[in-house]
């Protein structure tokens, strides 16, 4: 059960200004059936560009209906340039707050308003700038960056709550995460845990790495290496040839052999020499 403010409940149960204004001066339609919510906003102006009538039709949940109703209440009596300044945060404040999972409902209101005003002014709704990140909801990277900055968001889920990007098939999650990382100035987080190796797989991989990466380098200096045993993350090896008597043998083991094995087999390996 969502925790809705009394004002949200009131506007949901008794929505104001439902319907369509006849011969509207501005019409703004956003959302779609497949998206799960949609809003059609229509308004009429007097000669001073004051909004005298405004109506809405909404397909969506309680907060979508309440946000639309609130928006119409806020618009009425305002001049167009005043109405233009209404943001989704204003809608949320008017309603006494919305659950964070429902913030996108207020954003839908703001978008419909922008479209309706653009329609009145006869300006084509500006082609969205930037590259579309979320195909499901047509959200661009610039919009995501704006949401990150304005609302100080730090998780994909928050982005979805605010502007719906990522709320459908989920294909765009990785890209949204990249934008979050960029915003936070981080390197992309690679959330890939190393695969847990069985003992046999591990030993095979160690042998392969020795053959491919390590032995040829040692052999160049007249040395060699032999795998003696593997115990959990400990690898016991024996240095041979020139390496066995080399004063820098420990450095070779730690700085070269161990590092290569950590890189190609598993990051937790420790190499020890047995005589």
């Amino acid at each position, binding site marked *: 059960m969502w925790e809705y403010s009394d004002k949200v409940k009131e506007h949901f149960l008794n929505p104001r200004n439902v319907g369509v204004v006849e011969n509207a001066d501005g019409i703004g339609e956003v959302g779609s059936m497949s998206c*799960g919510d949609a809003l059609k906003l229509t308004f009429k102006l007097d000669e001073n560009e004051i909004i005298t009538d405004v109506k809405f039709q909404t397909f969506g949940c309680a907060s979508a209906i309440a946000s639309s109703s609130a928006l119409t209440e806020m618009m009425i009596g305002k001049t167009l340039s005043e109405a233009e300044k209404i943001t989704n945060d204003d809608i949320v404040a008017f309603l006494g707050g919305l659950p964070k999972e429902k913030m996108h409902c207020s954003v839908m209101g703001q978008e419909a308003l922008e479209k309706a005003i653009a329609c009145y002014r006869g300006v084509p709704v500006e082609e969205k700038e930037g590259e579309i990140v979320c195909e499901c909801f047509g959200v661009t990277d610039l919009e995501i960056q704006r949401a990150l900055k304005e609302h100080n968001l730090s998780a994909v889920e928050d982005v979805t709550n605010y502007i*719906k990007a990522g*709320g*459908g098939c989920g294909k765009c999650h990785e890209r949204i995460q990249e934008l979050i990382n960029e915003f936070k100035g981080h390197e992309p987080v690679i959330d890939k845990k190393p695969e847990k190796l069985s003992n046999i797989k591990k030993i095979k991989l160690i042998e392969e790495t020795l053959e491919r990466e390590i032995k040829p380098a040692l052999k160049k200096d007249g040395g060699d290496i032999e795998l003696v045993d593997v115990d959990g993350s400990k690898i016991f090896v024996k240095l041979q040839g020139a390496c066995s008597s080399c004063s820098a043998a420990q450095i070779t083991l730690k700085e070269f052999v161990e590092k290569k094995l950590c890189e190609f087999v598993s990051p937790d390996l420790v190499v020890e020499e047995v005589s």
Partner: protein
Amino acid sequence: MNTIYFDNNATTCAAPEVVDEMLPMLTEFYGNPSSMYKFAKKAGDRIHEARQRLADILNAMPEEIVFTSCGTESDSTAIWAAIRANPEKRHILTTRVEHSAIKNMGEYLSHNGYKVTYVPVDSRGNLDLDYFYDHLTNDTAIVSIMWANNETGVTFPIEELAQKVKQRGIVFHTDAVQAVGKIPIDMSKNNVDMLSLSGHKLHGPKGVGALYVRKGTKFSPFLIGGHQESGRRGGTENTASIAGLGKAAQLAAVHMEEENTRVRKLRDSLETGLIDRIPCSIINGDTKNRLPNTTNISFEYIEGESILLMMDELGICASSGSACTSGSLEPSHVLRAMGVPFTAAHGSVRFSLSIYNTQEEVDYVIEKLPPVIERLRAMSPFWKGPETECEIKS
């Protein structure tokens, strides 16, 4: 205003007899059943009795019942037990419409080295049996298929599937949380290896469930601890709830006939009452292979949460497959798997009845719901009045 509770697939009220059975376990017989003295034996005896009662409703042996904390624990236990018992096998076969207890477990395992195959369903929610048989492999560690779907009530041919699976030597588990107590289940006549059930879906308490484990099934515990439940589930027994679950099972066996006659009739009358009065509404799911208490109806062009909240104002409790949680507006995975169009999937409502419901309540809903749908449709940009073309046809 009285509450009309039509959400019994979510949870049920504990039957008064169940509460009577439970109370003394908290006050009089509070001994720890693992203790050595006589006083504790009284608690142990009640657990023993509950086990027998549960075995009776399933026509199983009492030693085949393992008490757990819920249906989800039973499901997880079954899956872990099967994959631990067959460590060389890396494949799991389940369906696209499972409860999240299995669905999310499948997702977890698929990220951890297992291949999980999800059997699709048709538009009526029936399993694609050819697909099912085609995807059983020698690498399959367990097949897990629900007995009845929680959202639509559609039942699957578990006996037939379990028999085929058994012939291949594969473990068969069923999540029967919605089925137990509503339709007859006879473990002596099928080949199901493990079956999950939950107390609060059959007028028992919340926080208790059970897993039926057929004698001879390889098993390793999920909760490792003391020797309770013959070493199959560590942890001090939830004695009051176990006693309550036992009583609930006994009552469910008694009420099963009523469930399949009177409750079924109530459900049918609710369903036809609503469908007849509300244009562009349709029943989701096969109406033949279905639990007697469940109906899932879509009201086109409006959204489920709005319907639920308006019904709530009228004192009616039901569920919606479209929760609009977070920005994710994807409707129920069950309805999407059935290919229900978006126009309908968003506006679906599940009504699930119980023996405590009456015809008066059904009549009240039939009277009150149509104006709610009409109000919401009047607000919807997609509803064009009575001339609106229904996208779905029954």
